[in-house]
């Protein structure tokens, strides 16, 4: 997994879920993935299905 200037190795992929919301104004469509990084850090990343970009929600 790559960030702005960092790279992390993903050890485990946990739960995957999808959120579709606010279809009545600016639709939000995301695919969330819970991952465990090298060193044991839990984080949640998501893909914005409208733009195709990936974001890190928390670390």
């Amino acid at each position, binding site marked *: 997994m790559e960030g702005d200037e960092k790279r992390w190795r993903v050890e485990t992929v946990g739960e995957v879920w999808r959120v579709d919301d606010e279809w009545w104004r600016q639709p939000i469509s995301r695919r969330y993935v819970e991952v465990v990084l090298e060193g044991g850090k839990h984080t949640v990343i998501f893909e914005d299905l409208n733009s195709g970009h990936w974001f890190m929600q*928390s670390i």
Partner: protein
Amino acid sequence: MLQSDLAVCAWIPLFPLRCEEGRRPDLASRPTALLSLEDTRRVWIVSPLARRMGVRPGVTVSQAIGLCPPLVLLEPDPVWYDEQFAHLLLALSRVSPVIEPAELGRAYVGVDGLEGLYGGPERVMAEIAAAAAEAGEAAADLVPVSSAAPAASPASAARLGWGRGKFTAWVAATRAKPGEFVIVADEGRLEFLASQPVAALPLDPDTHRRLYQLGLKTLGDLTTLPEDAVTSQFGRLGRLVWRLAAGLITDPVMGREVPEPITAALDFPTPIADRVILANTMDKLVERALKSPRRTGWRVHIVRARAALEQGASWLIEITLKDPSADQHRLAAPLKARLEQAPPTGAVERLAVEFTAFAPGTTELQLFACDAESAARAGRRQALRAAVHEIKTRLKRSTLYHVIEVHPWSRLPERRYALIDYEP
């Protein structure tokens, strides 16, 4: 118990908000709301600008922001409001010894006999207005240095009402414009009351609504009904409000006697010259004197320390606190500073701390002071305020935010919380 039938009501609506505006004058032109003390997800007090945009007390923060996006949300600072109110009470007590605090921002002044001292009701009202303004100036002096613009004091927005009994005075104050007064003379009292809206009655919103639904708009409308009929509809409360509306109740202002001086003393088995021991003893004596039951509901205005020295000499220091306090540290600190500057000239055989003058406290203060947890919270808030001030001074801007729960149920994590500027 001191009491007075003739009353003046000094009322500052939205007092906590006015206190905040005193610290941050820019707030006066912005829609503002204070968060609830018990539940920070709800708003407690709303400024008229925010109210105009539909924000009401009790709505959730998310609703409030939805209704009014530029809304400035502030964390409440009850200790600060209480201090400001104590300033007002202290200033009023210089005009009359009969002072009855009703709630934050509303106090009654007993004015029986004051006409002989100052002149007619207008002169007495002018004295009270001047005292309120003086309290405002004193409060403005205490505004943290971070506010560059001159602060508008909450007391300058005081509305004053004169009448026989607290209810008439209160209704008169609600009719007054900010900084002005309304006098209801005895001969016009019943007529005045009859023309007032039923909203002036001390009732819950549901009962007010019922009165409106019954077509009762003014106190006069209410008193045209038989007292028994109102009592049968609204019970004991109905009887009370009917009698208030009819002017049959003239509830006097009930002041309290200022307590006699309170002394706490310690005899040393061997005379002490060590300043550290003397300072520690002062701390303990202040703590002991504060615990006196006579002190309850009062703040200390003048504190003294006196010592009996070896060979019959004595030592005395007296501190008049600009901001009367019931806080041990605030009382002991100036005594200890003076001890350092001008210590006793010999060893001390007996040390005493005396509270010789008091300023009225408020019921709110007692609530905070009695509750140890709240007191600790207030202390933490004070420490936090100092730290934030330090950070702002160093960085020239605030980088601190308060996390507020907005949509805790949202499936989008970033929607669950909002950050608001932390302005302690």
